[in-house]
């Protein structure tokens, strides 16, 4: 479904309309899957850009390649680094205010993105 991310910079011939359709679809798919509290907070606060085909995911794929694009699949994110990016922003990602992403929200997001996972 998200083939253009795998293609990264090579997605020149992609049908734009299809791409945007796919983008909207995945916001929902993620919402339907929400169960863990941290996942819910991530989806409420971060999914505007960091759902699978969102602006954030797409930008990361363009800059660093697809393995680093989907934050929810990453296993290399350190808590301190997540906190810094959320509060200070990164490249074109705006920093998140403490009113919108509260301290408790940020704790939950960190817990979700650094949750223990079995090896693939």
């Amino acid at each position: 479904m998200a083939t253009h991310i795998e293609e990264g910079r090579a997605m020149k011939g992609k049908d734009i309309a299809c791409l945007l359709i796919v983008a909207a679809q995945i916001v929902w798919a993620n919402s339907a899957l929400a169960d863990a509290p941290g996942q819910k907070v991530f989806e409420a606060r971060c999914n505007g850009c960091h759902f699978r085909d969102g602006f954030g995911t797409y930008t990361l794929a363009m800059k660093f390649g697809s393995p680093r694009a989907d934050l929810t699949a990453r296993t290399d994110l350190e808590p301190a680094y997540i906190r810094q990016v959320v509060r200070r922003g990164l490249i074109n990602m705006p920093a998140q205010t403490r009113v919108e992403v509260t301290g408790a929200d940020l704790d939950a997001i960190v817990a979700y993105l650094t949750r223990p996972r079995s090896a693939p």
Partner: protein
Amino acid sequence: VLPPRVSARNFEKALRALAGVVGDSWVLSSEDDLRPYRDNYAPGDVASHVPSAVVAPASVDEIRGALKVANQYRVPLWPLSRGKNLGYGGSAPRMSGTVLLDLSRMNRILEVNERAAYCVVEPGVSFFDLFNALQGNKIPLWISAPGNGWGSVVGNALERGIGQSPYGDHASKVCGMEVVLADGSIVRTGMGAMGNSAMWPLFRYGFGPSWDQVFMQSNYGIVTRMGLWLMPEPEASIVMTMDLPEEGDLEWIIDVLHPLRLAGVTQNNPSVGNVIRLAATLSQREQWFKEKRPMPDDVIREIAKALKLGWWHFDVRLFGHDEINEVNARLVRDAFAAHTSVEFKVRKWKRGEPIMQSGTSLPGTFALQIVNWRGGQGGHMDFSPVSPPTGAHAMKQYRMARKRYEEFGFDYSGGFTLGERHLNHISMVLFDRNDEEMTRKARELYRLLVKEAAAEGYGEYRTHLSFMDDVAATYNFGGNSLLKLNEAVKDALDPNGILAPGKQGIWPRTLRKDAR
């Protein structure tokens, strides 16, 4: 940074009093807490728009409490619904030292009426929130989202934002507001003034002067709730996409589209964009062209070929009963067939199929990708004058703007959104904030574009914080009589000048002399 003419001691006292109103945790003043409120896409003048603190009330009562403190200590407040007006200043204030009044916590959807097709929302509700609430509850009403779905429904309508659905002129769908004035009084506009009328979100005018428009793009009050009309889900839609190959095609495209738009054959405002506008949402400039100079035509043609686009790309979206859509589609096809052999690509949708295929304006953030065009830390400003809806005006504006963009070293990225009786030319100055020279040129280019457009009678309909005085000065009939009226209203409603000083070029009496 402090507000003008407020001592450090009094500012400290004001912050303590504000904390007494909203609670300690909702007054922010540390450097770390303020940084995220700076304009993330600032055209090189971050220091001109730095807040001194943030107050985040959760209710109308708390807003009134904050206003009392602000009046007592003469501390200015900059209300923001969600602060996502990216490209126009984000959550930053016009004047450094202003305290931000962040209304994000007031995020309730107060009512959705399916039968009468409206909602009543607070300022903290985002397009994502409203969309998810409607879809999650299977309510067959559609929102009209702008490019940035992260933003506030209320804030976007107040700034007269646009979407691509038939309800895309968001300000025109507002029906009734609750507004807290600088003195703390609460006004309900239109039928809301009756107190017991069910007509508040249904009939716009009420009795006497109509105030909804007066609270848009102004600094006269704090909007705490808004009635907004929503589009009933249609039976079907047809999205017709067209790509035309020549730069000169723009003129006849507008002339063919306009009668169709005026007659209601197409109900949304089609937007005719150039190759670079689309390429910038999907790729970075260096993929196509390594040089710093503006992209030459042959490279633009290569991009168009690779992305399967024309020089100009647009779509016509038809919503309603299936049979009527089919007739309208034929009218559109026939009108274009008289000028070109290029055919529309057609996508059809019927109720029950996934909404993302319907062609309505769904919330997303993908459009923000444009800031990556030049690489580095991206920034963008929109130049958006309005003109009469003719091909000749479109072509004249396009040539004027493209020439200047290229003189200053930028690619022209933009398009023309066609309304029933106006054409809105929106082009984007995309720059890399790490490049000081480029950022300075972006500012210079913008000022020149505003000035030259105004000389031809083309006025901006919104602008970044840094250029509000420039644009206000172009609306100068009768010795700036409109600005004088705006200032007279400002002084009457807000004698201490505490609400959003300088917004849209409207300065309170207390600061007017210094501001000029």
